Each structure stands twice: as C-alpha cells, then as structure tokens.
C-alpha cells in the first residue's frame, strides 16, 4: 500500500471508529478510559520512531509529554486558544526539546544515551517544580470550558482529538517506515559507522528522529491539563509514561508501525480494566510481568511472533 493510500485508509478507519464509538456508546467512562489508550498509541508510536526504527532508547518520555502539557497550561493562562492549536504548540515545544536533546547527546550511544534522557526528564521536572507561574510543585487547576465545541461532552471532544492524533502519528510512523528516511534510520540502528560509510548523514537523521519523536510525544501531552483539570509535576512527569512507552512497542514489536499500536491497545486496555476492577496500583505490576514474559518468550514482540510463524509455514 502506498503512503498516500495508507493515510486515506487509516483516516477512514479512525473516522469509522469515532462515529461508531460516539454513536453507540453512551457510557462517559468509556471515553475517559479510551482517551488514555489512544494517548498511549501516540506515545508508544512516537517512542518507536526513535527507539525502534533508529535504535535509541529514550527514557525521558515524561519530559516530552509534560512539556506539551505545561505549554498548554501557559497558553491556557495567557490566551483562550482552542485545544487543537495548543496541541500544535505543545508539539512544537517538545519538538524543539527533542532537537536539543538530540544535539546534546549525539555522541552517546546505548545505555549512556538512555541515562542522559532520564537525566533530561529530571532536569525538566526540576525546572517546572520551581516555576511558580505554572503552579510549581503545588500543581495547578485548569478549568475546562463548560461547553465542548461541536457536540457531546468535553471528554468526548478530547477523546476525538486524541483519536485524530493517534491516526496522524500512526500514519506518520508508517510513512517514515517505508521511506528512504526509515531505511536510513534502520541503517543507523544496525551500525552507525557502516551507515555513515554508506553515505547516510547519521547526525542529521538522528536529529530528525529525536525531533519527530519528541514532537509527537508533546502533542499527546498537550490536552492533558483539560483531561485531568488538575496538573502537577509528580503526575505529569511520572516515570510510568516512560515505562509504558517502552513496554508497549516491546510487547507489540518494534520493527513495524503496527507493533506499538497492538502493544498500546493491549496493555492500555488491560491497565484500564485492572484499574476499575482490581486496583489502580496494580498497573505497573502487570506491565512488569508482561514485559518479563515477552522478553523471554517473544523478544521481537507480537509482530515478530506472527512473522516467525508465517515464515515457518512458507518453508
């Protein structure tokens, strides 16, 4: 399927999902939970562009996510812009952060890069904690507009926005994957020296990767203040965002755009169900157990499992 066709088909799929869920489901909680699952599709897809395609593990997901969220807080206090514009601004801010992170960590590889991204998250959190204008460590209340634009409740509106964002980020990931750019990312992941010797401008490609990945993460964080209505550093920078964004592509499969989607839907849904039925503290335990199971049984994720089976059948 060509890139243009994929954008079209995935748009239809997303539109159908939107119409069906909003038309058939009356329970508000569905949209409340669905928003989180969709948010994780965006986060894990974004993570996979840098982590899966390019081979750089980013543990600083919380920083990008929170920068998107806090840029919305600032815009909320200063202006009365609509949320879609805030999403674009949040994406721009965290895209810049991604570019800066890429530039500062160009010489770092493997575990050293991962530690640097973790450090970035801590630095960013410290800055926000000490910035009184956005609430500091106390956090800040963000009052939602009473009426949602278009129709339906405000949560349904945010859910719809996140669904669009999920469509866009998945389509971007798929487009990159099948392009010259994606092949260059794969070359960097496999061997940076050989990539450079093959004419791949590794520095430029890495910066593109960190910027796109960071930008999408920020976009997914931008509507958060309106979703939670109370935002504080401890929850918006939470390490669980990073853990989930790493775990989902790992469980789904990192080599293809569909991996993070499968991982996010599976893990995100299980987490939401567990939160309601068992306890909210159980979330990370489930992630941890699944992660261990997959690393041992299916290191290439569900996508890898399916591919191996298909290959075996062909032989």
């Amino acid at each position, binding site marked *: 399927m060509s890139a243009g066709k994929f954008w079209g088909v995935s748009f239809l799929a997303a539109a159908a999902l939107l119409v069906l869920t909003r038309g058939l489901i009356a329970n508000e909680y569905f949209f409340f939970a669905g928003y989180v699952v969709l948010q994780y599709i965006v986060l894990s897809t974004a993570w996979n562009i840098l982590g899966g395609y390019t081979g750089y593990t980013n543990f600083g997901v919380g920083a990008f996510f929170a920068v998107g969220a806090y840029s919305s807080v600032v815009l909320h206090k200063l202006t009365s812009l609509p949320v879609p514009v805030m999403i674009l601004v949040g994406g721009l801010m965290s895209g810049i952060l991604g570019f800066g992170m890429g530039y500062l960590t160009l010489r770092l590889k493997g575990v050293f890069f991962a530690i640097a991204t973790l450090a970035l998250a801590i630095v960013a959190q410290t800055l926000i904690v000490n910035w009184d204008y956005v609430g500091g460590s106390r956090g800040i209340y963000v009052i939602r507009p009473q009426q949602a634009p278009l129709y339906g409740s405000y949560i349904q509106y945010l859910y719809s926005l996140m669904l669009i964002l999920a469509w866009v980020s998945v389509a971007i990931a798929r487009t990159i994957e099948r392009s*010259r750019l994606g*092949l260059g990312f794969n070359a960097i992941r496999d061997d940076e020296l050989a990539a450079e010797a*093959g*004419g791949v401008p590794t520095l430029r490609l890495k910066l593109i990767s960190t910027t796109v990945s960071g930008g999408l993460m920020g976009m997914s964080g931008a509507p958060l203040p309106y979703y939670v209505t109370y935002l504080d550093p401890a929850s918006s920078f939470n390490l669980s965002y990073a853990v989930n964004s790493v775990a989902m592509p790992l469980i789904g499969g990192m080599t293809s755009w569909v991996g993070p989607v499968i991982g996010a839907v599976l893990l995100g849904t299980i987490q939401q169900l567990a939160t309601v039925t068992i306890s909210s503290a159980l979330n990370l335990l489930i992630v941890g157990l699944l992660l261990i199971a997959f690393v041992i049984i299916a290191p290439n994720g569900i996508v890898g499992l399916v591919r191996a089976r298909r290959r075996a059948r062909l032989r």
Partner: protein
Amino acid sequence: MPPLLEVGGLGKRFGGFVALEGIDLAVDTGERLGLIGPNGSGKSTLVNCLCGALHHDTGNITFDGRAIDGLPAYRRTRLGLARSFQLPKPFRSLNLVDNLRIPLLYTVNARPGARLSDGAIGERCLALLDDVGLADKAARLPRDLTQVEMRKLELARAVASAPRLLFADETMAGLSPSEVEEILLVLTRLNEQGITIVLIEHIMRAVMSFSTRLVVLVAGQKIADGAPQEAMRNPEFERAYLGE
C-alpha cells in the same frame, strides 16, 4: 595528471600513542595499490582517517583536487571514497537487497545528476549482488551468510556507492586459498571497470599478485613505497616482519 588521492604529512595520535606520523601518499587513478604492515602498524587507522571515521591531527588530504579534511564520512563517500570494513558490518535487520539500497539511495541518488527510480535501484541491487555471486540470497538476512559471503556483501555494498577509490580493508583475512582467489577476481574486475583500489592485506601472496605498487607501514610510519618486489627488499621491511 594529478593523483586521485594525495595525502601530505598525515598524523594521528591516541593520547600519548602515535598511531600515524608524517604519512605522505599519492594514489593515481586506476592504480592497484597494496598497503601492508605488521599488526598495529596503523593501516586501519590510516583508512579510518582517509574515509572520515576518525579525524587526523596533522597534515592534509586532497581527493580529486579537493581538500576533504574535516568533511564527515558520508560526504567523503558521496565524493567517491568507499571502504569495506575489516570486520564485516552488515545492516543485520535488512535483507541483502536493502543492504545495498542504502548506499544507492544515500550516495548515488544524493549526487547531482540523474536520480535512479525505485525500480532502477532494485535492478541495480540485484545486478551488484549477481556480480559477487549472491543473487540467489537477495531476500535473505546477513545472518544466513557464510564468512566469505559476508565479505562479498561488504564489498558489494562499498561498490554500490559507485566509488572512484575503494579501500578494501583485510577483505580476505581468515579465508581459504580458493576463497581468496574468488575475492581477488572480484577486485580485479572492479579495477578493470575503472575503480582505483587500495588493498590492505596480510596475505602476501594475494597482495603480490594483485598490486602494481606496494606501500609499507611500520609503527605508524611509511618505510617503503614502490614496485612490489623492490618494496619487499627494503631492509626495514625485513626487520619489521622477520626480526633482526
């Protein structure tokens, strides 16, 4: 005609260790140059400095009349300097065709002039694989290859960038005599197609049969440069290889 590659007073240190010192070297278009020297004499460091994987400390490098000091490796590849790695470095997650697609997309298509279409690139990849006898494994992953096939892939990938000068860094180490012959045939054919080749090698029989000129490095210095038989008669060469 000025030489294709000209190196003047090249030096490289790693901390207190002098890896290369005052290397002067000229390579003419179409030449088959053998570069030899004992382990640790700086052969690979020289290749790394010339191809941009390392940055030299002193001296200058001119390629095709253009100073290339300070250019990143990918720019040098695009200018026409290609290399194969001593330890093969295939793109492990990509099949053989995609391994060759990288240099075609990022080097050949990045040069000014005609761009190859996707179809043309695919055909070129298969033709390049066919040249080294790997056409039937085009859809395989590098892990399915044998050692000698891996070396051939390494060469094919370097050649895919349509270079003018190719550094073949120990492409034959650890291969059997008949496999050495196979690689030599490939290299000779490439040279006949107009690619200048610098062969870095330990297997003397291969170097002597292939090279039209020999350069000897010992402890980071060039001690001989000339016709193969002459270079080997150099007393310093004997001392380095055979001891006093």
